[in-house]
């Protein structure tokens, strides 16, 4: 097992006041599995959490959005990115 830090953006900040969440994950797991763990974390720790936002969100490193089937890069901080609306 390894610890991964996931930075929160946009609407995820509605649910907890922290800027990031730390999860224990298997070192060979995929973005899809980490997203599922994050969903469980929010269901357990946040009031009125709506899983729809997780389904529309992607995990990313500092350099790229991850495909759901991508292996999680070891040792990097991740970010969970809800639907975007810049500009």
């Amino acid at each position, binding site marked *: 097992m390894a610890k991964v830090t996931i930075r929160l*953006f946009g609407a995820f900040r509605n649910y907890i006041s922290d800027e990031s969440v730390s999860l224990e994950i298997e070192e060979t797991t995929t973005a899809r599995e980490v997203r599922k763990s994050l969903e469980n974390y929010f269901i357990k720790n946040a009031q009125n959490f709506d899983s729809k936002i997780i389904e529309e969100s*992607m995990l*990313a490193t500092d*350099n790229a959005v991850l495909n759901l089937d991508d292996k999680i890069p070891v040792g990097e901080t991740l970010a969970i990115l809800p*639907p*975007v609306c*810049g500009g």
Partner: protein
Amino acid sequence: MSIYVEFSNGPVEHSSITRNLTNNAHGAQNMFFGAVRTVNLGRNVTKIDYDLFAPLAKKVITEICEESIKQVGENADVAVIHAYNTVKIGELSIGIGVSTPHRAESYDACRYIIEEIKMRAPIWKKEYYEDGETEWVQGHALCQHNHRETA
């Protein structure tokens, strides 16, 4: 060809875009600025807080700029500045400037950049309303666009 991408803590200034377009071989400059409007979807807005994932946003916007320059034939300079944190009514959240030798290319590249930023850049906004409520604005789900583009 030059690309300038920056983030501004608070509103963007027009001059921070215009001063980045100084290529004497370019006869055309097109610019787009996004401003915070008083009304969005029927609600009275007082301000917007922008949240952005800086390292990835910078990478994605730089890639978008590169794509736009390639599309119009390489000879273009581009500057993009996006605000983070609070932007009030009438203030600017984004500035885009493109200079090219001739005008058609400057319009086309500038338009491409704003459309792609809205779809691909990891940036979010929380609107504050007159009635005291707030809301994170619904947006576009990200895809692995960058992976495909750079594959």
